[in-house]
């Protein structure tokens, strides 16, 4: 995996842990609204970016090995 992708995964994991910690204490309607409006979208988009980057990264690694 590329160095940048690894670091992005770590940065995301840190934020996700922080959200879990906050969510366990934040239980009002605003938390639900926040989760619906922002968090789920941020989570989905980050995941899809990382999946797409991983696939391209892996394909490039395989291609360079195979075409060496």
């Amino acid at each position, binding site marked *: 995996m*590329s160095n940048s992708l690894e670091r*992005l995964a770590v940065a995301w994991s840190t934020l996700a842990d922080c959200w879990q910690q906050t969510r366990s204490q934040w239980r*009002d309607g605003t938390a639900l609204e926040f989760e619906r409006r922002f968090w789920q979208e941020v989570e989905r988009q980050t995941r899809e970016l990382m999946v797409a980057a991983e696939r391209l990264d892996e394909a490039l690694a395989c291609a360079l090995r195979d*075409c060496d």
Partner: protein
Amino acid sequence: MEAELLSLESLCDLEGAVATFSGKARDLLDALRAELRHREALLNEREDAARQEVAYWRSAVEGAEESEDLESYLSELSAARERLENVSRWQARIGEERTRFTVEAARFDRLLDQAVPACRGDLKAKIADLRSYGSIQLDLRDGASSAAAVGAAAEGPLSSVSPAVEIPVGPPAKLTDLSLPDGFVWVPLAQVSQARLPSFSAGVANKGVSYEAMVSGLRRFAGEVLPRISLDPNGLGFDAFRALDEAAGQDYEHGLQRLYEGFFGKDFIYLVRGEDQEKFAITNGGHRIRVALDLGWDAIPARVKDLQE
């Protein structure tokens, strides 16, 4: 509300973590793009080399029609063509993956540019709200609750109370400590059946009132209506809250009278428990109960018909 106050520090942490992630993610996405471009360039170089190789051996074959090396050249040309086809196959596969990545990266850029700043804005507003609430609680503990403090806590535009209507108020330490008008009781939400709780679809809750407006309304009801009623449960009616609204220049739609009537007027929450039922069934007020649960309330003011009594 206690739970919200406990989350203030972690909310601040979350806001900081979102800011940190946003900055890092932008830099890392740029670096990732550069890394991937670099590796694509390496593959392009391999493709160019394979093309040159094919051209070289094709030329060698053309120039060696009668040569004894022709067979060897043809073999080399065939191998070079295979290598070129192999690189081309990889290029096609990578083209698909690159398109997908480019689309997702553009979406992620927009997320960082638009959604994340909005997200941080909401978190900051919530933090400010909780800080304001915390200061009011301290005031109450010191016996110094005031109309100004209530104004600081209000989510709506009602920020002061007319001196002509002197009703000291403030958010309660515990909702169920507050007295209710005759006929109403605090019903623990754990005793209310949630089997038929309504859900909110597309942000619209009930009678055209959004979920967000209901959340705001219930919080104002707890912070501004119930404490006043508790001082004189049967003496304060809708007219007192109308006077407060008028003094604050507040219309009915956004005022306290409407909140009062929502719970203690004709549209009160009504719960019924049969002789053989463990929990109360909701006859009226399901949406308010749904929001109260989301807000972490332990109980709700309601009229009840309890056949077990």
